[in-house]
Structure formats: structure tokens, C-alpha cells
């Protein structure tokens, strides 16, 4: 894991000090809200329905026991004993007092964390694969490049007032767990014929009002050229992205209005015009220095099969089910990655209490090589756990209320905070999410249904990624009443697709029964138990599902 040196440390501390001054000017009335707004946003401070909300960056989802314990302390001392993990590997505190934020930023600096650029029209927290460095499917660990991008983008003087927010995600695996195709820039690491690794650059993905999948603008950018090429993209966007309408200001609109070929031409021209001194090339020693922090931990030589674990599964069906659903293959024999679901029945998806954060910290320290990740599904992951330790880890998670056996299944849904917290929302998300979760209250039924991604947003801004759920739910306001549109066929992985809106919106209480009918239809139509919902949908088309959706008695 990357560790700050004195330079990184100085910058996060100076940032906290700067914001302390800005908050003091605001509280003294010297700074108008209008002029304070972009400053607080670039420090992750939103004004929500009931209070200020603080969004803290967890770059590429990387946490540690020390960081988690600090977040737990912040939850207890400054909030209401919990935090909310987001789809972009951030954590949000919903009840923070503005006057406390500078102190919170200082606490964060103590554990090498910050809230820099977690909001505002700037380059946001860089995100990545939550199984980076652990899965067998990647060509190399993408996290060093995420950290390089984090540093390059931090306080970038030219790109602090972009037309709109800008999100970058990086993956190096065949299976895309970072949703790179729905980011402003998605970087997909690949290997060329000469055996070197470099980047496929996808530009213009994004959800919101007008969802688009990113298009490949360059099939190959070398490591040496990466930051210079990113600068060329950023400059073309900063100069030519629309600023007349905030809903048309994301880079996806620029790419689509110009067309990918013209966009590519402009970026290539800008890139070609860079003088030697404008190139952003890190010294190789610097790349090596950052990469060294991500060297694999010391894994023990273990057999691929753990007899203790196998025996424990035979004795405990709960463990067996949890292991079947929540463990992910690891690249090292005898190890696994553990998916900790933050989606128990009836809780706001992604919420985690201070006690739970401490429990995960303890488990990671004892059994997880100090490595904890945030997944974009709003769950946590222990990247490296010995199979031998899985029964103990399961017991500890269970004691903390964190052993929901639903990773990747119907009740492991993504939802934004919705109208319960957010002043943009048109409709509640959490209550709909909980009613949909209840469909899967019977574990046998949930397993029988299998892989299913349900994504819920409380408004068109799409923080709950409704466009890329196998089933998407979008809350809308119709004459003061909440209605929910249903989308089908979206996915955020390497086969990314935008779901289609099916028809008229449903009332709040109609949503879960309608989804249940679609699931029943799927069960009756699937070719076999191994045909997933999304695959059956692709084979059969949406018509039979739509018919079930609106087939209320």
C-alpha cells in the first residue's frame, strides 16, 4: 500500500489549514455562500437536505485498519456513528457540522487521507478494481498508476474549474470490476506484441441524464505517454466542453457532438503540439518508487485446498452458503478475497457503523494482511485471506452483523441516499431498496435466482447507476408524487450496456411486486439454472419481462 512521504503529507496538512481559513471567513460572513460553494465542494463538503455532508476520498478503494479506525472515530465524534460507502470508492458522512470539517480533515491527514476534489468541477477520486493485486485475471497491478494519477491530478492548476466533474477509472483485468466504460476516462491496461503494458483509453462514458458508454479514443498509449495524453484530453475538454448548460457539460456530450473521430483528431493534435517541456513524464525512479509500495505481500506457500475450511463448510451450512457467494478467486494458492456485503436486509445500502468499521479493521489486521478495499458495489473487500482462516473470519464478520451471504445477488443492490438525504433527489431510494431486498429474504430463493444486479437512483443524476443495473430503478417526481421507472438490460462490466426504460413509472408500493413478477418470469423461461438473468434477457429479448412487469392483477 502506498505511504505518504513528507511531500504528500505536507500537502494534505496545508489543505486542511487552507480550508480552516476559508471556513472561518465563511462563518464570519466575509465569504458569500456563492463564492464559498466551489471551495467547499473541492473539499467534498455538500449542503444536503438536513446538514452538510462530507465526502472523503478512498483513492482506488484502498483502506487499511488504521484508516478504518480513524473513519470509525470520525463517525462517532462528528457524525451519528455511521458512514456511507459510495459507488466511487468514497465514504460520506451525512451529519457533519461545517465548523468541524477542518478538524476532521486534520484527523484524516494523520492517516494519509483527504477529501480533496471529491466534489466540484475538477478531476475526482480515481477509482479501480477492488480485487487489484489479488485476482488472477489482471496483467499487472493497476494501483501504482492510480496513485500516479492521484498525485498528478491533485490541485492541478489548469483543471480546477472544468465544465463539469471528471471521473477516471483504471483496470488491468479482463473482467471489468471498475466500470471503466461509464467513466469520463476509462483506462484499460493491456499488453502489446512487444510484451509492454500500456493503456487503452476510453473517453466519454457517463450516466446522469444522458447516459453514454465510453468509446476507445486510443487503443494504445504507452506508460511514458499516459499523463501527457491525459493532459491533452483534459485541455481539449477544458477549452471546448460546453459551459452553457450543466446537463450538457460532461465530456460525453463533447465527444458525441464532435464525433469520436473529430474528438480524437483534436486530442492528437494537442498531444502532438506539446513541447518537450510540456510533457508530463515521471522519472523512471519515481514510477519504480511508487510501484514498490504495491509489491505483493508475503504470501505463505499453501495447498490450493484447505481441509479445515472444507470440513467447516460441511458442518455449517451458513458458512457454506456465505463462502459460495462471497468469496472470490485469488491468484495465490490457498488464499481468497472476501466480499463483505454492506447490504443486509433493511439497512440503507452501503452504510457501515463505527463498530463495524472497527470489526473489519481487527479482522483485516489479524487475517487479512492489513488490506481492505471498497468495491464500487458499495461493499468492502478483504483482498488477501487464507482459506484456512475463512471460518474464523466468517464468525467474526457474523458477530459484527457483516456476514450477509448475498454478494452479487439480488439483495446486494446499489442505491443512492435518495430523498431521505439528498436535495437533488425526486424520490426515496432506500425504502424501495429495502422492499426489493425483501423479495430475497429467503436465502434459498435468492440463491436459486442467482446473479442479479439491481441499481436504484432517486433522480435522473443517476448516483445509484440505474442505467447499468440488470434491473434499474429510477425515481421521478410526477406532480408531487414519487414514481419509479424500470430499466432492463444494463450492465457495468466488460460487456457494459445502458438499460432501456420499459414504460410508465410505477408507484412506490408497486415496484417490488413488479420486480418479483419479472424474476418469476425469468425463472420459468431460463434455459437452465446456470443461465443468469442478464443472459436470459439477452437471449429472449425484453418483451416477456416487460409483459411481466406490467402484468399486475
Amino acid at each position, binding site marked *: 500500500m502506498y505511504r505518504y512521504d513528507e511531500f504528500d503529507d505536507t*500537502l494534505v496538512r496545508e*489543505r486542511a489549514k487552507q480550508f480552516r481559513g476559508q471556513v472561518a471567513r465563511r462563518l464570519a460572513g466575509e465569504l458569500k455562500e456563492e463564492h464559498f460553494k466551489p*471551495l467547499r465542494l473541492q473539499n467534498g463538503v455538500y449542503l444536503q437536505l438536513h446538514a452538510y455532508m462530507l465526502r472523503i476520498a478512498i483513492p482506488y478503494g484502498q483502506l487499511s485498519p488504521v484508516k478504518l479506525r480513524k473513519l470509525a472515530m470520525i463517525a462517532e465524534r462528528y457524525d451519528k456513528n455511521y458512514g456511507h460507502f459510495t459507488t466511487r470508492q468514497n465514504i460520506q458522512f451525512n451529519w457533519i457540522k461545517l465548523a468541524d470539517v477542518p478538524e476532521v480533515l486534520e484527523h484524516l491527514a494523520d492517516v494519509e487521507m483527504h477529501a480533496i476534489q471529491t466534489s466540484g468541477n475538477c478531476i475526482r477520486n480515481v477509482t479501480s478494481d477492488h480485487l487489484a493485486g489479488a485476482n488472477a485475471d489482471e496483467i499487472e497491478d493497476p494501483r501504482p498508476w492510480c496513485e500516479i494519477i492521484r*498525485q498528478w491530478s491533485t490541485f492541478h*492548476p*489548469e483543471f480546477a*474549474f472544468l465544465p463539469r466533474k471528471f471521473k477516471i477509472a483504471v483496470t488491468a483485468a479482463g473482467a471489468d470490476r471498475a466500470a471503466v466504460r461509464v467513466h469520463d476516462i476509462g483506462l484499460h491496461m493491456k499488453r502489446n506484441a512487444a510484451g509492454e503494458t500500456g493503456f487503452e483509453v476510453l473517453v466519454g462514458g457517463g450516466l446522469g441524464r444522458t447516459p453514454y458508454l465510453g468509446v476507445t479514443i486510443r487503443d494504445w498509449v504507452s506508460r511514458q505517454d499516459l499523463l501527457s495524453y491525459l493532459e491533452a484530453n483534459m*485541455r481539449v475538454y477544458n477549452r471546448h466542453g460546453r459551459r452553457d448548460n450543466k446537463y450538457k457539460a460532461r465530456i460525453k456530450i463533447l465527444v458525441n457532438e464532435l464525433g469520436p473521430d473529430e474528438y480524437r483528431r483534436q486530442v492528437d493534435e494537442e498531444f502532438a503540439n506539446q513541447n518537450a517541456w510540456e510533457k508530463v513524464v515521471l*522519472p523512471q525512479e519515481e514510477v519504480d*518508487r511508487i510501484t514498490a509500495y504495491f509489491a505483493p505481500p508475503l504470501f505463505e506457500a499453501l495447498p490450493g485446498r484447505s481441509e479445515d475450511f472444507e470440513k467447516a463448510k460441511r458442518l455449517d451450512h451458513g458458512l457454506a452458503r456465505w463462502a459460495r457467494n462471497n468469496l472470490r478467486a485469488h491468484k495465490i494458492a490457498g488464499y481468497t478475497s472476501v466480499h463483505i456485503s454492506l447490504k443486509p436486509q433493511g439497512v440503507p445500502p452501503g452504510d457501515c457503523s463505527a463498530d463495524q468499521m472497527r470489526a473489519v479493521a481487527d479482522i483485516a489486521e489479524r487475517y487479512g494482511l492489513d488490506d481492505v478495499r471498497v468495491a464500487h458495489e458499495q461493499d468492502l473487500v478483504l483482498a488477501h485471506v487464507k482459506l484456512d482462516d475463512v471460518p474464523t473470519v466468517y464468525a467474526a464478520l457474523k458477530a459484527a452483523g457483516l456476514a450477509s451471504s448475498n454478494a452479487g445477488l439480488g439483495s446486494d443492490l446499489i442505491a443512492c441516499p435518495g430523498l431521505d438525504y439528498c436535495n437533488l433527489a425526486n424520490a426515496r431510494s432506500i425504502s424501495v431498496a429495502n422492499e426489493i431486498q425483501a423479495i430475497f429474504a429467503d436465502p434459498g430463493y435468492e440463491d436459486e435466482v442467482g446473479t442479479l444486479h439491481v441499481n436504484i437512483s432517486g433522480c435522473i443524476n443517476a448516483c445509484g447507476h440505474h442505467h447499468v443495473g440488470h434491473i434499474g430503478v429510477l425515481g421521478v417526481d410526477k406532480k408531487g408524487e414519487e414514481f419509479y421507472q424500470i430499466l432492463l438490460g444494463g450492465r457495468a462490466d466488460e460487456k457494459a450496456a445502458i438499460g432501456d426504460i420499459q414504460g410508465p413509472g410505477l408507484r412506490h408500493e408497486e415496484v417490488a411486486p413488479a420486480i418479483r413478477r419479472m424474476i418469476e418470469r425469468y425463472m420459468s423461461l431460463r434455459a437452465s439454472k446456470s443461465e443468469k438473468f442478464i443472459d436470459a434477457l439477452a437471449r429472449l429479448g425484453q418483451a416477456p419481462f416487460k409483459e411481466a412487469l406490467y402484468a399486475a392483477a
Partner: protein
Amino acid sequence: MPLLKNGKPVDDVWAFVEDGNELSPGGCFTVSLSRFLSEHDMLLGRNEAVGVRLEPADDPALLAEHLDRLHLIEVAFPKYTDGRGYSIANLLRRRLGYAGELRAVGQVLRDQLNFMVRTGFDAVVLNGDDAEEAYRDATAYFSEVYQASADERETVFQKRHKKKTSQKVA
């Protein structure tokens, strides 16, 4: 509204002349890019200094061949949220090699100053009685930078590399 040059208050001898208005015989004037491009022979032939005011959508590359004869380029920030001026500044300084005065005008807030100085502005028109002090504070918040920019500060990436070398020597 004091004009600060490199952080120090100076008298402003310049005036912007709207398109269509006559330039009076004496004095230093800035004009719009389009006016400059159509009248540059006449403008550069005057005995007085001439400058150009760029709006956010203007392309600074159009000034390339005239840059060594311009004494001032103003970059307009009609709204502080419009960040195109930072790209214009970096292009003028780093791409096109402009060395004259580069002045931010319009909605200039003290919290933008760090970014402005970093992208090569050496002059700003800043509100407030405490403008000089505000400028000093705002440009001193961060003692380290990750990016090379028009201000030519040494980056963290370079310092780390240098530090390692010097440690080896020691």
C-alpha cells in the same frame, strides 16, 4: 480595485477599448482579439504600447506571430467558474512562449490566485482593501506542487528524485 503585479500594487495605465470605439492618440490600450487581428498593422504602428484582451473562447494561438510585440495580454474571467482562462495562460506561457504581462481580469477571487499564478498570470485585478495580503496568503498555501506548470516550480516528482541522489552522495 487595486492592480497587483507579482503581488504588489501598481498603477494601472491600461484601458480596454470596446470594439467600434476610437483609440485616443495617447495611452496604453487593450483591444479584443478580433479587432487586433483585423487592425494589427495600425495598432502595432502606434507609438504607444498595445495589448489584447482574450475572452474564454478565444484561441491564443492566433496571436503567435505578434506575441513579442505585445506588452499586455488580459484574460477575461467573466465567471470565476469558467476555467478556460487557465488553459489560455498555460498555452501562452508554455506553448507559445509569451513573456509579457499576463493579467487576469473580471471575476477574480482570492481563492483562484494560486491556480492563476501557477498557470503564468503575473498580474491580477483583485477586490478588497487587503488585496496585497490576500494575494500573499493565497499564493503561499501550498509549499509543494505535483505538476510542472508555467510558474516553473520544481515538482514533488523531481524533488524526490533529486533528494534520493543527494542522499546517496551524503
